């Protein structure tokens, strides 16, 4: 048995070692697809919200290492043919990243997947003091004369309705399969104020090719709708320090590729992985990095930020569904995460907790009602503390051999804890969720990749701050299970 384990461990490793060599003989770039290669032209253009997204956003883009200082241009969009004449030019910050030897918290990391790719430059810029609810046009430059097209993006209104899309893990079959999910999301919610990616955007986060896929899959969507990325466990890599110490550390490709709000209260190592977005007093989004070993700093920051938040709606997003029952914890980190972060979220009665990681769809709530199960079945309003969702958007789907994934919610599984109970789930179904906020009301809809609604509920906040959840019609539809859907193989054949 031990022998078998060893072989199964070694085989993929040796294949991994071979693959880059075969793909790039002699470090040449001839086998690297043009959609991956850096050039003097700007690519991987991504828009991220600032801490006050109605008044600030950031842009990040990439070029090859020949492009030193460069610029972006911004102008308020008008219907005039030459709306661009009075655009203002802004100088970008430029950062070099050696894809073959990347700096990490645990020393230099040799990027095995990136042989022959050399150094690239990431450029970024943050625009502040923008007007809310205003359509801006921007373009970014690589080398002189090498401009992107003009992209238009609207800053969120300072008040009034807001809407966004939340995705679980993309991770596998990103360009091939996840692309249809993000495109359908854009077709369904083309005016979204942001797209939230709840971690595991890719599988091997030190592989430039996988990030190329993530950017190719989203293409222009990443450039026009602000992305709110969350770090998952796959945004960590294993690095052996010069002293021989093995450690899981954040991928050095994260911070160059995204420009996110920096929480000064946190240590530098947690910057741009824990951050807060304030959409006026309607919605505060707390992005939590659950892919660490220890959570004291994060929990302290989150506790204080939640305590200070006066928003009608408080949303926490993190990759790991920390709220699963203890008997499913795989290690001490899982238990520490739950103890540290779960306590804070419970304490502040956070309204929505959006997560990924499990590669399946599960949605439930922590209730005040004793008879919540009956109410779930009849569709009667329920008094809830927190709604918890787990979703997946990529081509990997968990198959649970002996047990349904429903055990991820506490339910009545006998561990004696008062946790969230499951209300809706699905196998074999990549999804995206549309969440619309209008005053005291939230409408939530989970869509399949062909644009049909699979799950829905509304959440309403009363004057006492208590929330009432009403399950929508779609949540009573037939369950999609492995038994009654098309065969699922795996995601290994996809590129």
């Amino acid at each position: 048995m031990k022998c078998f384990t060893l072989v199964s461990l070694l085989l993929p490793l040796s294949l991994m070692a071979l693959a880059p060599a075969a793909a790039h003989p002699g470090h040449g770039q001839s086998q690297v697809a043009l959609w991956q290669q850096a050039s003097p032209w700007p690519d991987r253009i991504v828009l991220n919200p600032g801490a006050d997204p109605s008044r600030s956003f950031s842009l990040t883009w990439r070029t090859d290492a020949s492009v030193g200082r460069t610029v972006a241009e911004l102008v308020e969009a008008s219907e005039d043919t030459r709306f661009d004449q009075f655009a203002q030019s802004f100088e970008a910050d430029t950062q070099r990243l050696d894809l073959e030897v990347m700096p990490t918290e645990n020393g230099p990391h040799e990027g095995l997947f990136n042989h022959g790719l050399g150094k690239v430059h990431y450029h970024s810029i943050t625009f502040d003091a923008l007007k809310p609810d205003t359509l801006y046009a921007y373009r970014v430059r690589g080398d002189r004369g090498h401009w992107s097209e003009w992209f238009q993006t609207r800053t969120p209104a300072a008040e009034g309705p807001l809407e966004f899309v939340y995705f679980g893990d993309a991770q596998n079959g990103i360009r091939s399969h996840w692309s249809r999910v993000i495109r359908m999301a854009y077709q369904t919610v083309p005016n979204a104020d942001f797209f939230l990616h709840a971690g595991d955007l890719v599988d091997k986060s030190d592989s430039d090719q996988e990030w190329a896929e993530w950017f190719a899959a989203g293409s222009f969507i990443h450039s026009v709708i602000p992305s709110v990325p969350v770090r998952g466990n796959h945004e960590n890599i294993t690095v052996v320090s010069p002293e021989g110490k093995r450690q899981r550390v954040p991928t050095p490709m994260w911070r160059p590729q995204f420009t996110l709000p920096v929480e000064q209260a946190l240590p530098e190592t947690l910057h741009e992985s824990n951050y807060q977005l304030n959409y006026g007093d309607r919605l505060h989004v707390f992005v939590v990095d659950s892919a660490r070993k220890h959570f004291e700093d994060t929990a302290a920051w989150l506790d204080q930020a939640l305590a200070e938040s006066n928003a009608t709606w408080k949303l926490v997003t993190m990759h790991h569904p920390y709220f699963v029952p203890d008997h499913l914890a795989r290690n001490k980190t899982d238990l520490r995460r739950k103890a540290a972060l779960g306590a804070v979220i419970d304490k502040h009665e956070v309204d929505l907790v959006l997560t990924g990681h499990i590669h399946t769809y599960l949605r439930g709530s922590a209730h005040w009602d004793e008879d919540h199960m009956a109410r779930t079945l009849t569709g009667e309003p329920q008094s809830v503390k927190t709604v918890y969702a787990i979703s997946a958007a990529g081509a990997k789907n968990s198959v649970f051999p002996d047990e349904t994934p429903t055990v991820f919610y506490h339910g009545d599984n006998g561990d004696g804890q008062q946790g969230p109970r499951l209300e809706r789930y699905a196998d074999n179904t990549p999804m995206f969720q549309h969440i619309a906020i209008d005053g005291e009301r939230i409408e939530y809809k989970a869509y399949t990749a062909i644009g049909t609604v699979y799950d829905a509920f509304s959440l309403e906040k009363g004057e006492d701050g208590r929330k009432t959840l009403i399950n929508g019609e779609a949540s009573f539809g037939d369950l999609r299970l492995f038994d009654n859907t098309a065969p699922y193989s795996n995601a290994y054949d996809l590129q």
Partner: protein
Amino acid sequence: MKTTLQNLSKLAASLAASLLLVGQLAAHPNHAAQPPWQAPTKWPDRIVATVTEEPTTSFSVSWRTAQTVGVAIAEIVEASPDVRFDLGAQAKKADSQLLLLDQMESPNDGTIHFVENQGLEPVIHHQVTFDDLKPDTLYAYRVRGARGHWSAWYQLKTAPAEGPIQFVFFGDAQTSIRSHISRTVAAAYKAAPHAQFYMHGGDLVNTAEYDMEWAEWFEAGGRSYRMVPNLMVPGNHDYINFSSRRGEARQETGKLFAAEKIVTPWWNAQFRLPTNNDLHDDLAGTAYDVRYNEQLHIFAIDSNGVDFEGQMAWLDKQLKASDAKWRVVTMHHPLFSFIGGNEHWAAAERRVQLLETLEANDVDLVITGHRHTYQRARSSDYDNRRYNVGEDHKVDTVFVVTASSTKAGNTKKEGWDRYSDQTDGRYTLSRYGNQSPIFTIIDIDGDTMSFSSQNPVGEVYDSFTLTKQDADNKILSDGAEAHGITRDGEQMGPYKKWDDLR
């Protein structure tokens, strides 16, 4: 022995190095010259879906690769919510054709060279038609270049056999396509994310043989041209004019239409369009009709093409045979192309021919480009000048002209007024606007056809509805936006010519 081994390994090393060099050269022959968004590779690019004669049960897809990819395939499957919706996909071999980029054979001048494309290797264009599909059904397809080099899966819905239809019309893209026209395409995709097809009224590019401009066209449309089938007619800028290449003056009598010209070889290589006319071979893929479904019939006329008279006779015949409730004619040149300007006598002659055909067959809409401005006019069999904007009244045909491009046309309103006088008010201009890109979203639902003409910031500039009360009564009702301020003179922001843009 040792020496031999060393020599051998040296030889192997130099062999490997030279192979590597060759490999790199072959893969990117013009790597330095072409931007990554233009250069062909083993991967499929310039992927575009187009309409067929039977949009309820089929659609076509075209794509491009480097010339090393001789055989390409595509796959299709009905889209499902399943993670591995693709497992039962069916493969189809593409029809592939080589396209020379730097030269072509002309009818009378031998080989002509395209300096814009100097040094560009030939490419291969691949096309498939997926047929025997179900109406109103979402399909997923992907296309392949070299083995293992697949596109992403794209989802596209076939036309519904009945029920509402929505489509978008784009006028000339032509200039600053990647830089500026992209925002018009983006705005249209945002405003009508579920549009069932797009129509392009010609002048997709400025220089018909300039490969980089076609690369720009695909860059600008890359966001949606793969998910929404396209229907396009060529404009004068999509034609290669051998007469003018020889330096012959355009204004010579009759030269305007008698010039020796042919639609750019990029046209049929890049777009698989219907070839169902029984006219001259040169009109294959440029003049055709599409019976979209029960309700709608579209007639594409090649207003630059040969045999305009023949095209009109064909149009007349097709219109008479069509029992579709809504009949739309699209072509590049508007009816009143040069009103107020120096209209060529041949253009005026053409107008007479076209109007005869339209009026004999009660065409509902003629939608065109060419003027780089927005214009909406109507015809009726009485003096319609007595109706002000906002008053419902009976019409025969509505004429719409739009443009996306950065060229700035000006509507010659006085020319229109003169023409109205000449025709006793049977033809009048309803609404116009200058120096603002406009696309038009058209919704058909039973007896009504609704129009929403929008600019790239998402504002509606013009709106109106046609309602068929009965066979003889088609009522035009203006929407609120039809009363808005007219974009002309001081109502516009400053304009600047486009030639600083790439």
